[in-house]
C-alpha cells in the first residue's frame, strides 16, 4: 500500500516539476504555411523571391486599374459608360471628385513601395549569410527594386502632386505611422538619385534566350527610359535628351541588319518597331514584342489582367470606358491607321478601345469597316509601361522644350524623332516637316498630339495633359482637351490643382499629418464637431 502512495508522490512531484519546467519556449507557436522573418532573408533565393513579389504586387488588379485609370479616365481619350461605370468613375467624369472616391486610394502603390523598401533594407545583410551571394548580384537585384519603387512614385506624384516619401520599410509597430507629404519634385529628385545608382548596377540583359525576363524585369535600358520619363516630368530636359540619346546609341549599336525582325517575340536585346499592321496582335495582345521596353508579365491561366477586362471589356461585355470619338478623331489625319486599328467602332454599341483586349482585326467585306476579334476573359495580356516610340517622343519633347521659339534646326531634330512613330502608322504619307510647325507652341502641340495618337488607351494621356499644364503654369492651353466636361466641370478645371486627385478620405482620417490637396480643401472648411 505504501508503494502506491509513493507512486502518487512521485507523480505529483513530476506534475509540479513539469509545471515549473514548462518555460517560455512552450508558449511559442508557429503558423503553418508562412515563413517567419527570423527564418527569411537567409539566401539569395529569398532575396530573389522577394524581388519577384515587388513585381507580382503590381499585377494586382487594384494596382493595374489605378495605373490605367489615373492616366486615362479623365482624359479626352475616353468616356465613362453610363451603365457599366461605377459611381466613382462617373463622379470623376463629372468632375465631382470627393476624397471618398475609391480612385483616390493609393494604398496598393505603397504596398509595392513597402516591399521594395523591405528588399533594400534586408538584401545587403544576406550577402554576409549566403556566401555564394555576391555583392554585385545583390546590387543588380536591388537595382530592379529601386526602379520599381521609382515607377510607383512617378505614378503617385503625377496623380496626387505631393505624396509621403517612404524610403524605409515598415516591419513592426515600434514607430508612429503618421507622415507628412513631401513635395512631388523632391520625391522625384530622390528617385533620380536612386535610378542613377540602379542604372549603374542593373543587368543589361537576363540572357538573350530569356525574353520574358528581358521585357518583364528592369534592365539598364528600361531603367534609362524610366529615368528619362522622370527627367521630363521634372523639366530636366537636357538630362532627358541625354538619356534618350544614350538609349538610342546603345540600341543602334546592337542593330544587326542581317537579322531584320518583323514579327514574333523578340529575344534580341535590339529594340525595333513592329509593323503597324501587326501592332494590335503582336505588341498589345501577344506581348513582349521587339519594340517593348518594359511590360508587366501576366501569366496565362494564373494571373489575369482583370483591370483591362473590366475597363476595356472582352468578347461578351463592353468596357467601363469607351472611346470619346468626338474628341479623339480630330487628332488623326486621313492616312493614319492607328484610329482604325485601335478603335472598334462597328455596331450600335459605344466605340471601344481595342488595345490589349482584341487579338486581331479584319476588314469586313460587307461594311468596309474593321471588325475586331476580342478575347474571351480572363484576359492575360501584359501591360506595357514603355515601348520604343516613347524614347523618341520623350526626346522630341525634351528638344522642343529646350529650343528657342523658332529654332528650326532643333525642330528638325525633334521632327526626326516624331516621324519614327508617325511614319510607321502613316505608311503612305510624307514625313512631317518642321516648316509646317514653325513655332515652339505648334511643335509642343504636335508632340502632344503624336503622343496621344501613339499611346492612346495606354494610361499616359492625362499625365501628358498635366505635364503640359505644368509647363504653362495654368490650364489655358490644355483647356481645349476638356470639351467632354460640362461647363461646370470645365470651370473647375481652370484651377491647375484640379488636375490632381484628392487625398483619400481614409488616409485623411488615419494620418494626422496629412493635408488635403489644395483644390479639395474647400470641403474641409466645415469640420465635423
Amino acid at each position: 500500500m505504501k508503494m502506491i502512495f509513493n507512486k502518487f508522490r512521485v507523480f505529483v512531484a513530476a506534475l509540479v516539476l513539469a509545471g515549473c519546467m514548462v518555460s517560455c519556449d512552450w508558449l511559442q507557436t508557429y503558423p503553418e504555411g508562412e515563413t517567419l522573418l527570423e527564418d527569411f532573408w537567409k539566401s539569395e533565393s529569398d532575396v530573389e523571391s522577394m524581388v519577384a513579389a515587388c513585381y507580382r504586387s503590381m499585377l494586382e488588379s487594384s494596382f493595374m486599374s489605378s495605373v490605367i485609370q489615373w492616366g486615362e479616365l479623365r482624359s479626352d481619350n475616353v468616356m465613362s459608360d453610363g451603365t457599366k461605370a461605377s459611381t466613382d468613375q462617373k463622379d470623376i467624369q463629372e468632375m465631382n471628385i470627393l476624397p471618398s472616391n475609391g480612385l483616390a486610394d493609393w494604398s496598393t502603390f505603397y504596398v509595392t513601395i513597402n516591399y521594395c523598401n523591405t528588399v533594400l533594407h534586408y538584401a545587403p545583410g544576406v550577402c554576409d549569410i549566403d556566401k555564394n551571394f555576391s555583392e554585385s548580384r545583390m546590387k543588380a537585384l536591388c537595382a530592379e527594386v529601386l526602379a520599381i519603387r521609382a515607377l510607383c512614385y512617378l505614378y503617385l506624384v503625377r496623380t496626387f502632386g505631393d505624396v509621403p516619401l517612404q524610403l524605409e520599410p515598415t516591419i513592426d509597430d515600434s514607430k508612429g505611422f503618421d507622415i507628412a507629404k513631401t513635395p512631388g519634385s523632391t520625391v522625384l529628385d530622390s528617385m533620380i538619385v536612386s535610378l542613377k545608382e540602379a542604372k549603374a548596377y542593373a543587368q543589361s540583359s537576363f540572357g538573350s534566350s530569356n525574353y520574358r525576363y528581358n521585357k518583364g524585369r528592369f534592365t539598364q535600358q528600361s531603367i534609362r527610359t524610366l529615368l528619362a520619363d522622370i527627367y521630363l516630368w521634372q523639366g530636366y530636359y537636357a538630362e532627358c535628351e541625354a538619356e534618350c540619346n544614350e538609349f538610342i546609341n546603345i540600341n543602334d549599336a546592337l542593330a544587326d541588319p542581317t537579322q531584320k525582325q518583323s514579327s514574333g517575340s523578340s529575344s534580341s536585346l535590339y529594340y525595333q518597331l513592329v509593323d503597324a499592321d501587326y501592332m494590335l496582335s503582336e505588341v498589345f495582345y501577344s506581348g513582349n514584342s521587339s519594340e517593348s521596353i518594359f511590360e508587366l508579365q501576366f501569366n496565362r491561366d494564373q494571373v489575369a489582367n482583370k483591370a483591362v477586362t473590366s475597363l476595356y471589356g472582352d468578347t461578351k461585355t463592353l468596357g467601363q470606358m469607351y472611346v470619346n470619338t468626338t474628341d479623339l478623331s480630330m487628332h488623326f489625319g486621313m492616312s493614319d491607321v492607328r484610329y482604325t486599328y485601335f478603335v472598334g467602332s462597328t455596331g450600335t454599341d459605344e466605340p471601344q478601345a481595342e488595345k490589349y483586349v482584341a487579338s486581331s482585326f479584319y476588314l469586313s467585306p460587307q461594311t468596309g469597316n474593321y471588325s475586331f476579334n476580342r478575347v474571351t476573359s480572363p484576359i492575360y495580356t501584359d501591360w506595357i509601361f514603355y515601348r520604343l516610340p516613347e524614347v523618341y517622343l520623350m526626346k522630341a519633347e525634351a528638344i522642343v522644350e529646350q529650343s528657342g521659339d523658332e529654332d528650326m534646326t532643333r525642330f528638325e531634330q525633334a521632327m526626326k524623332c516624331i516621324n519614327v512613330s508617325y511614319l510607321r502608322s502613316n505608311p503612305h504619307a510624307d514625313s512631317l516637316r518642321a516648316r509646317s510647325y514653325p513655332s515652339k507652341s505648334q511643335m509642343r502641340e504636335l508632340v502632344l498630339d503624336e503622343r496621344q495618337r501613339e499611346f492612346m488607351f495606354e494610361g499616359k494621356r492625362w499625365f501628358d495633359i498635366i505635364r503640359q499644364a505644368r509647363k504653362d503654369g495654368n490650364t489655358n492651353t490644355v483647356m481645349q482637351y476638356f470639351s467632354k466636361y460640362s461647363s461646370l466641370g470645365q470651370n473647375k478645371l481652370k484651377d491647375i490643382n484640379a488636375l490632381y486627385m484628392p487625398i483619400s478620405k481614409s488616409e485623411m482620417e488615419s494620418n494626422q499629418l496629412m493635408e488635403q490637396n489644395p483644390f479639395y480643401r474647400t470641403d474641409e472648411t466645415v469640420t465635423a464637431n
Partner: protein
Amino acid sequence: MKNIIRIACFLALTMVVAMPSEAQQQNSNIVRGTVIAATDGEPLISVSVTEIDPSNRIVGVTITNYDGEYVLQISSPGNKLRFKYLGFETKDVEIGNKRVINVSLDEQTVNLTEATVTARAMQSDGRFNIPQREVSTAMQKISTEEFDGIQVSSIDDALQGRIAGLDIVNVSGEPGAGMSMRIRGTTSINGSSEPLIVIDDIPYETEIADDFDFATANQDAYAQLINVNPDDIESITVLKDAASTAMYGAKGASGVLLITTKKGKAGPTRIDYALGVTGNKQPKGMNMLNGDDYTMLMKQSYYLPHLDETASNVQEFNYDTNFTEYENFNNNTDWREEVSQIGISQDHTLTVSGGGDKVTFRVSGGYTHESGTCIGQALKRLSMRANVTYRVSDRITFSSDFSYTYSDNPKSYEDLLSNAYKKMPNLTVYSQDVFGNETDSYYHIREDSKLNDSQKKLSNPVAVADLARNYNYSYRTSPVFTLIYEFLDRSKTAASLKLNANVSFDINSSQKSTYFPREASNASWSASTVNLSERSESESMGVRGDVKLVWASGFANDNHRVTAMARFTINGSTSEQLGMGVYGLPSSQITSSSVNAYVNKLSSGYSESKSINYSASAHYAYAGRYIFDLTLAYAGSTKFGPNYRFGLFPGISASWIISDETFFDPIRNVVSMLKPRVSWGLTGKEPSENYLYYSRYAQYDYGYIDMIAIHPVNMQLSNLKWENTTQLNGGLDLEFFDGKYSLSFDYYYKNTTDLLFKNLGISSSSGFSALTNRNNGAMSNRGWELNIHLNELVKVNKFRIDANFNFSNNKNQIDELSEDVLARYNPEYDYANGTYLTRIQIGNSVGSIYGFKYLGVYEYGEYDPEHPDRTCPIARDANGNAILDANGKTKPMYFAYGKSNAYEFKAGDAMYEDINHDGTIDELDIVYLGNSLPKVNGGFGITFRYGQFSLQTFFNYRVGNKVVNGARMNAENMYTNDNQSVAVNWRWRKEGDQTEMPRALYNYGYNWLGSDRYVEDASFLRFKYLTFNYSIPRDILKPAHLSQCSFYLSFQNVATFTSYTGVDPEVSTGGYSVATDNAKTPRAKQVVFRLRLGF
C-alpha cells in the same frame, strides 16, 4: 501540446504500473471463517466480506455461502476484514496472524439521541469550497431549481433577468440563436464582451475564427451555451468582480459564469424522465399595406418628385390586363404570414443516476426538436452526459465526465422576415397563369423589369425557405478525467491537503453547408449567386491539464482558518477550417460543392494557441468574521510576443461579518447578518488572433514570370498587450430574521485601459492600411446592483409566497482615446437618408445615437404672413420668426446647402430642427439622441405555493435604452419599392394636412434622415413566464413505484409592456454600434407542457 500528452501518458502509465505491482504483493495467506447472527446464532447468508487497507480502500471481497462460511485470500495481514450485512451492525476485524476469523454480527438497533448538526453551507467560487457566508467577492449563485418547469433550449434564456449585473439580450427568436450576455457592461470596443463560461471548473470556449468581427457581427455565431442541455445543470454562479475572476487571468475581464452540472448521488438507482412540449407563436409585427394600398402609394411616390405622369407609369402598378405579368401583380399577399408558422417543440430527457459508497454515477440523454416560427428553421439537439465517480478509498477518488452534443440547426438562407416586410404585396407567391390560376412554381420578378433593383433582386422568401438551404451541424465532445488525492489522513488530523488533477479534452467540429438554387431567384443561370453551393468545416481540439493543490488548515485554535490553493493549468488548442464554394452547378438536383463547377471560394486556415496559468489563492478567516482573500494569477498566452507574454493578475478582497460581533447580540434576532465587503482586482483580455507578434512571409498564389514570389503579409505587433481591466467593488450583505429576507447591494467601478482596437486604419503609406490590433485609450463602467430575496413573505397554513427582486445599473463612459482613433471612428457625415452618425466621444458612452431632431411635416409650401405659425419650409430665427431678406422675402429651408446634393424642402417634406438657425439642415444640426444601453435592468419573480401546487411568475425588464427602429424606418420611408406599413396611409397629401408622416417620394428628397423619428425608448417589462406546477404526493405515487410525478404548464413571454412600437424591444448591441432593430425574428410566445417522472 507535446507536454500535455506527455503528462497524460505519465498519468496513465502511473496507473497501469501501480496495479500489477500491487498484485505481486499477494501471498498465499487465506482467511476463512463463519458469520453468524449474535442474537440467535444462525449463519448469515450473503454477508459481504471485504478486506480493507488502512485508508479504507477495498483490496479483496467475497460473500458468505448458505452456511455462512467464507474463504478469502488476503493481501496483507495488516489490513482489516469488514463484515457488512443489511440490518446488522458493520464489524471490522484486524487480520493480524489470525487465519480463521469467525464473527457474530449484532442486529442494528435504532437508538436516536438528540444530535446537533452545525453545517455551514459551502460554496465553490472556482477556487475551492468556502463557507457561503464567508464570501467576500461579488458573486451570485442560482440553482436551476429556481426556474424548474420552464422550457428553454439554452440556459442563458432562463438566466435572463435573474442575476443583478448580468444583462442578457436575446439576439433573435430563431431556434439556435444565441443570447448576448454582458456582466457589468461592455468592456471592449472591438473584442467580445461575452463572459467566460466555465463548466465544472473547465473553461468552455469556442475557438472563434480570427476574422470574426464582434463589433458588427450578428451574434448568432457564439451561441455556445446551446451545446449544454439545461437539464444537466445544477447551479450557476456568476463571478462579477475582478477579485473573483482574477484567477482566470487574461480571460476574466468580462466576468465568469461557473456552471456546475448534476452529479450522481449515493442511493438507490433513480430514473428520471422529463417531457416537454411547446407551442411557439410569433407575435404579430407591423401591419403592412395590402397590394391595393401599396400600388396607390407607389404611383404617388413616383409622381411627386417630378410631378410627371409618365414617371408613375410603371406597368407593375397599373393593373393593366394587357401587361403579360398582370395576374402576378394584382394580388394582396401578406408575406409575413406566408413565412410564419406555429412552431412546435418537443424535448425529452432521460436520466439514470445512483450509486453506492464507492461508485456514484449519473448518465443523461436528451433530445430536443424545435421548429421555428419562421418556415424552414429548426433545431435538433441530441445531448449526452455521463459522470462516474469512483472512491477508491477515503483518500483517492477518480472521476470521469463525458459529454457529447450533436446539434443540427437548419437556418434561413436569407433573413426571411425582413425580406417579407419589404416584399411588394401585390405580387404573388406562386406564378399565376393568364387566368389567374396558381401554378406550382415560385414567382420571381422578371429580370427585365424596370422596378428598382432593391425590389427586383429581392428574392421570394417562400421560395428561399423551401428551396435554398443553410444547414449547420456541430458535434462537441468533452471528456474529463479527474483524480483527487488526499495527502493527509483525515482520521489523524483536521487539516487537509488535496490534490485535484484533471486532464480534459474538448473536441469540437462544425459544418455549414448552404445551397442556393436558381429556382429561388430571378438571376440568370450563369450568375455566380445561383446554383451556388458552399460548404465549410471547422474542427478544433483543445487539451487542458490542470493540477490544483488545496490546503485547508486544521489549527487547534479555531479562530484561524485558512484555505489555500496553488494551481497550474496548461491549455493547448488547435483549430482548422476549410471552406469551398462552387457556383454554376448543372442543376438544382446537384447540390454538392465538390462537383466540377466554377469554384469561387476556396479557403483553409489553421491556428494553434496555448496558454499557461499559474495561480495561487488564499482565503483566511479570523474568528469566522474577519475575512481576507487573495488571488494571484500569472498567465501566459501565445497571442503575445515575448515582451508581454506573461501578465500578473492580482485580486484582493475582504469582508467583515459585523453581525457576529458580540455588540450585535441585541439585534441579531432581527438582523441576522450584516456583512460589508470590498474587493479589488485586475483582469485582462487577449486579442482573438494568433501569430500577431511575428513578421510573417507568405508565398503569392502565383509568382512573377517563373519566379516564386514571397512577400511580408503583416506588420509585426511586438508591443501589443492585454486589454487591462481593474475593478473596485464595494458590497453589503444583509439578512433578516435568520435569513428569511436577504438583501445584497454592490457598487462597482471598472476601468479598462489599453483597449484593443481591431483593424485600426493607419497611414497607408506605411504599406499597410490597417493595424490588425492596437492598444489605445480607456473606458470605464460603473454601476450598482441590488438583489432582494424574500422567503415566506406570506405564510398562511399551506399557502406561501416567496419573492425575489433584482436591479442593476451600469454606466459606460469612454475616458480616453487618441486623436487618430477618434478620427477613424468618427467618420464625416455622409448626407444620406437613413444613416445615423456613429461616433465615439470622450465622456460619452458607447452605443450613443446621434441624429437630427424631427419636428413633423411642413404643412404648407409658402410662408403666409397672416399665419406666421403655420409650418412651411423657410429659415427661422431662434424665436421662430421667419428670417426675411432686404426685399422682405423669406429664405427657403435647405438640406446641405452649398453641397452638390443640396435640396430645397417643399410642403409635405419632413421637418427637422434647424438647431443653429442657419437655414440649412446639415451636420451642424445633429444632436445626441440617446443611448442603446439601459439605465436599469433586472427582473423579479413571485412564487405562490399551496401544498403540492405552485405558481411561479417571473418578469424581466430593461429601462432607459434607446433603439433605432430600423424596421419601422424601412416601412415608413416611402422611398423605394419596398412595402410600407399601414402608418403611411396617414401621409401628407395636400397643403394644410397636419400629419407626422411626410409625403411619398420615390428615390427623392430627404424625408428619412437619421433622426429621433425612429429612435424609440425601448424600455420594457416582460412577463417572462407563468408556470403552474403540481406534484402528486409521494404516498399516492408509491403503489405505482414512482418517486416523482410533476406536471408543469408554463406560459412563456406572456406579455410585454412597452411603449416601443416595434415587434420586440429586446435588441442587442455589439461593441460600440447602436442598437438597431432590423425586424429580426421576435421572441415567440410559448405554451409549454412539461411532465417529470421519477422511478
